[in-house]
């Protein structure tokens, strides 16, 4: 969004849009020339809140090579406290909330796919989920405990896996029931899985290339043990006619978010309108991912003719659901937000004022607490290309 700094301040102060009033943004890591921050966990699960403590994960190259970091902010603390984790080069760190101010971390490093618990006392011992792979995601279920999903190379392809993670009283983790998401060996890549938990189900989604183009597939479990066969969530059409060029339009980088009871939203980037880049699409489930409703475009028509990137979503137990992404409809890249309206359908898009304005604001990740507060993280990039990792909280408007 291009606007003068003065106008931006006036707008920001007054504007608090209909849904959230935003606090001032803060830097999560010290900006420095030549240091680049990345918020890119599978499903964009880089922010979590537990018992009022906020956790944010990212990767940056401040030491000269990519490493993973966690920042924690206790409810009564003035700022974040930072921890490093992973062995050697570390990528795509993700986080999930566990009750009691604790968190689970997942990442890719030189030892493969790692996971550990974290709290204000630091980061616990790491376990290896796989010797090779990445794109990890975690979810906590009050009924089924902690679950992980990731992808690993298997022969020519990558395959999506899931596992339960048992939490021991001393903070150690052990892997239970590690299985491929699809029992049938892959015939093409399975990528970027995400796992989520609703009141009574566990659900997964991932990018699947078995049809010759990318399609969002999903699977769910109503008992924590047996899972439905993988099935399409995205309805981007596969062309099977002999001689026709290409096999279909793309769909990528899914995320899943519960938003009360067994309601679950799947959100992804979708290329079915192939002339204007990716659009943000969503599908909703009333039964925790066992069945899905129609695919709907989440962005409004002002974003139709330009590309959207980095879609993410957050929900709460009250039924609130918000979706964010970045696009440059106002001239420069800003973070944009929509939400599910009480009567159904998605609201007109707004750019949260702290994450809009001159320069580039991209790569949002967010979570929502049970009071409907939105915790938003994004990457800000100035004209010199250097990045800042930013954080702001949006409180529901009265």
């Amino acid at each position, binding site marked *: 969004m291009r606007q003068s700094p003065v106008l931006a301040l006036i707008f920001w102060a007054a504007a608090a849009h209909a849904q959230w009033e935003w606090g001032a943004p803060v830097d999560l890591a010290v900006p420095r020339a030549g240091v680049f921050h990345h918020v890119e966990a599978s499903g964009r699960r880089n922010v979590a809140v537990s018992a009022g403590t906020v956790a944010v994960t990212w990767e940056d190259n401040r030491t000269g090579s990519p490493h993973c970091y966690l920042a924690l902010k206790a409810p009564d603390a003035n700022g974040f406290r930072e921890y490093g984790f992973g062995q050697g080069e570390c990528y795509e760190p993700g986080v999930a909330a566990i009750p009691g101010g604790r968190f689970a971390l997942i990442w890719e490093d030189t030892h493969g796919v790692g996971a550990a618990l974290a709290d204000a006392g630091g980061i616990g011992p790491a376990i290896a989920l796989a010797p090779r792979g990445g794109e990890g995601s975690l979810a906590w279920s009050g009924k089924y405990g902690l679950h992980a999903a990731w992808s690993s190379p298997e022969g020519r392809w990558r395959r999506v896996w899931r596992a339960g993670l048992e939490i021991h009283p001393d903070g150690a983790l052990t892997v239970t029931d590690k299985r491929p998401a699809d029992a049938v060996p892959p015939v093409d890549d399975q990528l970027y899985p995400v796992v989520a938990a609703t009141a009574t189900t566990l659900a997964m989604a991932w990018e699947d290339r078995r049809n010759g*183009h990318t399609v969002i597939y999903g699977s769910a479990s109503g008992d924590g043990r047996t899972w439905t066969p993988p099935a399409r969530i995205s309805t981007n059409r596969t062309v099977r006619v002999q001689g026709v*060029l*290409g096999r279909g339009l*793309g769909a990528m980088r899914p995320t899943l978010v519960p938003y009360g009871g067994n309601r679950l939203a799947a959100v992804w980037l979708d290329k079915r309108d192939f*002339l204007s*880049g990716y659009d943000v699409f969503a599908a909703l489930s009333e039964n925790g991912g066992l069945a899905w409703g129609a695919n709907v475009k989440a962005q409004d028509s002002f974003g139709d003719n330009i*590309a959207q990137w980095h879609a993410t979503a957050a929900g709460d137990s009250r039924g609130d659901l918000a979706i964010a992404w970045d696009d440059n409809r106002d001239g420069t890249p800003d973070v944009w937000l929509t939400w599910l309206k009480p009567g159904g359908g998605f609201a007109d898009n707004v750019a949260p004022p702290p994450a809009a304005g001159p320069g580039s604001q991209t790569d949002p990740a967010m979570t929502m607490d049970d009071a409907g507060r939105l915790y938003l993280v994004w990457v800000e990039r100035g004209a010199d290309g250097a990045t800042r990792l930013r954080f702001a909280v949006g409180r529901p408007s009265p």
Partner: protein
Amino acid sequence: MRLILLPRALALLAMVLAFSPAWADPPKGYPFTDFDTALRHARADHKPIFLYFGRYGCAWCDHTNRVTFVNPDIRRIYSDNYELVYVDAEGGKRLTLPSGERITEADLGSRLGAFATPLFVYMTPEGRIVAKVPGFKTVQDFKDFDRYVRGGYYKTQTLAQFLEGGK
């Protein structure tokens, strides 16, 4: 025993590769490589870079491969004179930009402002973008783009100006 089985294994591998559904991968017969390798070679050899930003399942990529990139002149011009990079628009492989920033293939799309595939990007040996061309292009188009880049016309005019000016 191993020696006896080897030819069969190789034949099986060839069949698997021949019949596997490689939808809109880079065109056959070209020395495409990854982004970081191409940038390193381009600097060392002072060659421009030709980046093919394609998508798995992309119909127009498939069409360009079958109609344009099969042309022997295009194969010779681009293989001999460019460092060739293929980037999967939805891929997660990591690459390092000239700035030193490490990003993924898919994120390169957001940095390039890509809205459709295929997208063809021409860069100097130092990695500076001098032209971006989306969509299906003919043999003559690629010959014109080559003359614009290797002829150094990009230093004084845009690609559109070059094309309008009678090439």
